């Protein structure tokens, strides 16, 4: 099926540093998403993005978070500065209009 890629697969950083998670969505998809999964817990919606803008975000999408997709390149999630509670697996997803969301393999972020 359609593949979403995420880079890096793992990232370890010190608290307070900036981190950028990269997502390469399915090529003809228009909607992009980030979800967060803390180990052993359910997946939680963070944000969705369409036509260059954030359409909706949850309360988990703190002020330190930002997303962008400059010029059709990677769809990125930036956290600046990071906090201990940001440790989680971050999943990117993409979809066409009102259709299946396809998920990437996740980036495992550990904040020390």
């Amino acid at each position: 099926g359609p593949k979403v890629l995420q880079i890096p697969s793992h990232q370890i950083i010190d608290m307070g540093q900036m981190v950028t998670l990269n997502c390469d969505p399915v090529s003809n998809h228009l909607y992009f998403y980030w979800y967060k999964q803390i180990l052993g817990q359910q997946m939680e919606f963070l944000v969705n993005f369409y036509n260059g803008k954030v359409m909706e975000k949850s309360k988990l999408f703190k002020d330190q978070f930002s997303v962008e997709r400059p010029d059709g390149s990677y769809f990125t999630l930036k956290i600046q500065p990071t906090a201990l509670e940001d440790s989680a697996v971050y999943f990117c997803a993409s979809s066409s209009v009102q259709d299946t969301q396809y998920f990437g393999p996740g980036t495992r972020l550990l904040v020390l």
Partner: protein
Amino acid sequence: GDKVKQSPSALSLQEGTNSALRCNFSIAATTVQWFLQNPRGSLMNLFYLVPGTKENGRLKSAFDSKESYSTLHIRDAQLEDSGTYFCAAEAISNYNVLYFGSGTKLTVEP
């Protein structure tokens, strides 16, 4: 409270047997997706449903929007079916947001 309640939380099956997983929604769900998360953490798409049923091999899923639930039936369980199954729903009030259940950890034993 949880918008999507998934049950059971864990399930152990003998190879070759059948089972059903269920999700109840407290939101006005319009579409449902079912996923299998493997031990490495990757999410595999199983079904995307509007109200109705779909079948794929040994898996069958149903979504009843009026009664606000969805089911996933596994027939003739195999070892490779082991993993965590998640349902997720879109709500009429929030298209393009998936609300996930807490997952069913399935173990298929020989």
